[in-house]
């Protein structure tokens, strides 16, 4: 047993609550969601396991505190630092024993100097033809104060304007088309005879089934999966889109991922109303924040990790990206094909579509387009109406 582990074990047997709280605080400082009952469960586990070596301590603590796979690396770092590394936790109760853990969130997001939305748009004016239709955006008017802002490009809003628009954006209700649920509901008309209900009803009429009852399949909304590009060129739009998805995370129970070079699931942060936190976390995870996107790689991550397991199956998938692929476009094409096989419909929101002379003939967008069901701009508040519409459309 390492001396650190021995010290900790001693502290634990001397004053279990105190040692547990010291560990809990370190974990909390490193970003793990720790609640008092977790500490209690750790103490109970440790006392059951008896005189503890490092391995027993490790498992008691991990089983007590960790509630998801993503937390394991952070936990390992903090546990390692506390038990093998630094100090007697009881000696430093007011301090922050986890401060040296590598998980500390010191890397602030650099406010990405946008590479500018003037990418390889191309000059050809021909309309793209794949599975996609490039739609002109209808101008829908929203409530009074924001009318002026309705058609302003989202990347040209200043902070005050964004606050106004943000409120409206949050209210846009995203709803996916329904799918047939497995469960059925009793109804007077429907495809199947409900024998049980019919028999029961027949008691009222002396055993003759006068009234026939049926069952009909229920409709459920489809899952909505949003993949949001937060790389430099998309950064000005990402703020507004995240607000849209924050509303959707609660209303339509959307699953949201953000990516620049890595894919991060932010559903939970959005559901708790922390869009800003989600953005910060995503940018902290993307070391080259302003450097462009590895779209194909991010999609591959999604397909391998979540899509294949069932998240994308029969769902409406919305990709928010300018399609500016830094990696290999053919990988993007392959991954889009895989995604298209899983998903019900794929909607691609690309603010550059609205630019004059835009034509998706180059690079990433061209590779992705054959597998996209609808390509729309979503570049202004008014244009977001079209996004709402596209998400609700049937195949």
């Amino acid at each position, binding site marked *: 047993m390492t001396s650190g582990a021995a010290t900790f074990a001693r502290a634990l047997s001397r004053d279990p609550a105190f040692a547990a709280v010291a560990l809990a605080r370190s974990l909390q400082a490193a970003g793990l*969601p720790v*609640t008092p*009952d*977790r500490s209690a*469960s750790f103490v*109970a*586990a440790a006392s*059951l*396991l*008896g005189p503890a070596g490092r*391995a*027993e301590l490790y*498992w*008691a603590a*991990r*089983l*007590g505190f*960790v*509630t*998801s*796979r993503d937390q*394991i690396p952070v936990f390992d770092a903090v546990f390692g630092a506390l038990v093998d590394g630094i100090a007697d936790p009881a000696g430093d109760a007011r301090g922050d024993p986890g401060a040296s853990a590598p998980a500390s969130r010191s890397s602030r997001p650099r406010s990405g100097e946008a590479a500018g939305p003037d990418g390889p748009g191309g000059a050809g004016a021909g309309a793209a033809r794949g599975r996609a239709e490039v739609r002109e955006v209808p101008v829908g008017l929203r409530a009074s104060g924001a009318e002026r802002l309705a058609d302003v490009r989202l990347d040209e809003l200043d902070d005050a304007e964004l606050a106004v628009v943000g409120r409206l954006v949050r209210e846009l209700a995203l709803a996916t088309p329904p799918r047939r*649920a*497995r*469960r059925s509901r009793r109804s007077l008309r429907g495809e199947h005879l409900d024998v*049980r209900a019919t*028999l*029961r009803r027949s008691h009222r009429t002396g055993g003759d089934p006068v009234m026939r009852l049926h069952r009909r399949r229920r409709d459920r909304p489809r899952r909505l999966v949003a993949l949001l590009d937060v790389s430099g060129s998309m950064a000005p739009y990402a703020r507004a889109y995240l607000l849209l998805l924050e509303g959707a995370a609660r209303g339509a129970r959307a*699953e949201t991922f953000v990516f620049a070079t890595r894919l991060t699931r932010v*559903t*939970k942060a959005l559901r708790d109303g922390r869009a800003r936190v989600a953005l910060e976390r995503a940018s902290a995870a993307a070391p080259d924040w302003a450097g462009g996107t590895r779209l194909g790689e991010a999609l591959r991550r999604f*397909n*391998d990790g*979540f899509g*294949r*397991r*069932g*998240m994308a199956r029969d769902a409406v998938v919305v990709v928010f990206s300018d399609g500016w692929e830094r990696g290999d476009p053919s990988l993007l094409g392959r991954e889009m094909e*895989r995604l298209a096989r899983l998903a019900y419909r794929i909607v691609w929101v690309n603010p550059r579509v609205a630019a004059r002379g835009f034509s998706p003939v180059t690079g990433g967008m061209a590779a992705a387009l054959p597998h996209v069901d609808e390509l729309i701009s979503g570049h202004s508040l008014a244009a977001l109406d079209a996004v709402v519409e596209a998400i609700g459309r049937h195949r």
Partner: protein
Amino acid sequence: MTGELAELLPDVDAVTASLDGVDYLADAGLATAMFLSLRLPQPLLLEGEAGVGKTEAARALAAALGTRLIRLQCYEGMDSAEALYEWNYPRQLLRIRLAEAGGADVGEDDLFGRDYLVSRPVLEAIEHPGPLPAVLLIDELDRADPDFEAFLLELLADAAVTIPELGTIRATVPPAVVLTSNRTRDLHDALKRRCLYHWIDYPPADREVEIVRRRVPGTSGELAGDVVRALARLRGSDVQKPPGIAEGIDWVAALELLGAERLDARAADRTLGAVLKYREDQAAVRAAGLETLVGRPA
């Protein structure tokens, strides 16, 4: 019952040994998790890649305890009639008809008695007489609706089930509950808080060889070693569905059946369908050359 359980499984080593006795090789983490789950007692939430043996772990736990495994496979739209209990309507109706024909009287209390209740897995687990707890496996919980998790909370917290016509049925011996999830969606925090959480990783190579040889008796160490090395390569490569332990066992069984003594390119070619279930994956592996897949370290 805690007494008997404590006697049977006094410490983690005893858990490891009795799981070993039923041919399930658990590492320190999983054995500790099971030990704590039984003795605290607290439900155990297992997550891990498909095919690392989550379901098998619950099965082994039941076998090690010598009790029943009661399995509830979750799916979308599952409701309490399928998880908990249902009234046996045809039988109630028959009883009424018989009573009518015989001119007898039948009261409501007769009809809503225990005889007319059909137990589903959760109720079955609650009513398990003991002395050792039954193992209730709630498999692939992430497939069920979020509402179902809320329904589980009463079960997990009190080991009790409420039936309006009969009242609350409390477990004499609370079942050992094992939940598994494939992480297609996040489970609710309220549920996670009541559980011990354990992530099952792929086992290290030597242990996996041992597992495979246990499950396919008569396999030579060489063949099992070949297969495990190939599995590790596949998991490290770009395949869409990395093979789990279960696929490895199938693969070895297939090779055994064909009489292969070592895994070479020809044998791999004939049995690739046992490990890779996507056409693209098979094509990619064949394109890279089966030689590199089965190649032995120099």
